[in-house]
């Protein structure tokens, strides 16, 4: 026992050192393998189209042509605009509808509360394809297929995953705060607006970022609803379709791939803490 205690104070001796080296070898090797795909994609995006089909990995010469072509050969700005519209509106609508719903489920006792909560969990976890046909038929009857409306509008009526996540965050706020606000004469909206929302800001931000990313990355929804109308293609669907149809140009493809990644990475670095804590919370606070 003494021996163990001693080695703890001298981390670089004997076996400890080997463990340290071993761990770092693994850490670095895996990290290199993880970064390599991105490095290759970046390098290829700076190659001429002839060079992308050869067995070289280093651009020679370096060219920015692919990034310029990305904007001239495909309507990339329009795709970005559509993605932004989809993601921003979906997120805004979700917040308006889901924050109050999550609050009710987290903090107010009423009949059928459990039934509704279970329904939300099931709605969240069921594959969307289970309900795809009738919902598609519904939007087709309304004449709204061929647009992003079927993907944006439902968020006005709450998003199951967001409601669930927000409720989890709201549960972490001690009841006493809400009770105090009620005693001060606040109605439930007042409690939500003045007490809960300010205290749950990080959680709300995390939920918003999740839905934003989900919408930004969505492929299945646009495939189903807007594939026949290129004017409404968002960038994820555009990238998949562009690559599937009219080009073998890997330089251009990798350049567009990079451009599609950038907004997400930028948002991540600005909201890193919130985002990572949000992810962690979904799993841990369960």
């Amino acid at each position, binding site marked *: 026992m003494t021996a*163990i205690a001693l080695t703890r104070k001298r981390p670089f001796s004997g076996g400890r050192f080997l463990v340290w080296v071993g*761990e770092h070898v693994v*850490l670095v090797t895996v990290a290199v393998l*993880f970064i390599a*795909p991105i490095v*290759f994609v970046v390098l290829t995006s700076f190659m001429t189209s002839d060079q992308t089909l050869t*067995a*070289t*990995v280093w651009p020679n010469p370096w060219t920015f042509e692919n990034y310029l072509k990305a904007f001239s050969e495909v309507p990339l700005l329009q795709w970005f605009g559509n993605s932004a519209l989809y993601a921003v509106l979906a997120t805004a609508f979700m917040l308006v*509808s889901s924050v*109050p*719903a999550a609050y009710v*489920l987290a903090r107010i006792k009423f009949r059928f*509360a*459990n039934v*509704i909560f279970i329904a939300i969990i*099931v*709605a969240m*976890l*069921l*594959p969307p*394809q*289970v*309900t*795809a*046909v009738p*919902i598609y*038929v519904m939007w087709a009857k309304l004449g709204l297929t061929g647009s992003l409306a079927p993907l944006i509008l*439902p968020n*006005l009526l709450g*998003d199951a995953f967001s409601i669930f996540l927000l*409720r989890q965050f709201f*549960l972490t706020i001690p009841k006493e705060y809400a009770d105090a606000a009620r005693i001060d004469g606040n109605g*439930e909206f007042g409690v*939500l607006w003045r007490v809960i929302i300010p205290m749950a800001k990080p959680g709300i931000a995390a939920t918003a970022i999740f839905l934003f990313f989900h919408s930004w*990355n969505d*492929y299945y929804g646009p*495939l*189903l609803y807007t*594939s026949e109308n290129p004017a409404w293609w968002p960038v*994820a*669907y555009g*990238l*998949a*379709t562009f*690559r599937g*149809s009219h080009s073998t140009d*890997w330089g251009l*493809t*990798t350049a567009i*791939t990079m451009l*599609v*990644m950038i907004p*997400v*990475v930028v948002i991540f670095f600005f909201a890193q803490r919130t985002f990572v804590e949000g*992810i*962690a*919370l979904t799993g*841990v606070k*369960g």
Partner: protein
Amino acid sequence: MLAPALLGLAIFFVYPLIASVYYSFTRFDLVSDPEFIGFRNYEYLFTKDPKVATAALNTLWFVLIMVPVKLLFAFFVANLLVRSRRGNGVWRTLYYLPALVPPVASVVAFVFLFNPGTGPVNTILKALGIHGPLWFNDPNLSKPTLLLLSIWVMGDVMIILLAGLLDVPRELYEAAGLDGANAAQKLRYVTLPTITPVLVFSLVTGIIAALQFFTEAAVASTVASGKAVVGEGTGSQLGYPNNSLLTYTQWLYVRGFGNYQLGYASALAVILFIVAAAFLVVLLRRVKAFTPEEATA
């Protein structure tokens, strides 16, 4: 406050669930009215559909192999990262970064990397004297190649596990160390008991996601096939090569929105619902976050 959400549940969940059951007994192409045909769709599904078994088995492969492998790998990396060391933030960001890449972009990137003729992976293997395989173009390797992709983007799971590991009190390890426990014993008696709920949560959400696995496989097929879509439509390309990437939800898409057999697609949806619901009933009772009592406790 709850009214919009209730309306949402009714319109986008309860109604379509019931309507799916109704449509599943009809022949329906959206151009003409549904025509009631009894159990014909189900009879075809269980006895005649040439691809439904393949599609279900492919989905099962992703559930049984991709989910655990990704989880184990994420757990392994989280364990490496949990020790406090210099540059912690950098390591964590580095390992998390691929998870941020939009799925479509990551698949396109992987199809490029693993292109058997011109991709960097086979170029490097060739330099090492190894004859690289066909990856996404080989029906036996297409799923394992997607598995590599899913390992690459394990960051989302890894972060959850890392947060769980950081919640394990350090004193427990020290106490175990004093009792002479080795690394394996610490894992078994200290780490696992604390982290099990998090692992279960990750497993559950992973299985649910795998049951609806669509985007990655669909994009891999359409991009790797290299075929031009002239007039056939996306549905005709799904599953390439040799239906090895055809998942159940893609098959539902092909029948429903490629061939416009909405009645039959509804039958497929009903079966998917039953399978998913069976998973859910078991899982809901195991995951604390999904039980409602907490709200009123």
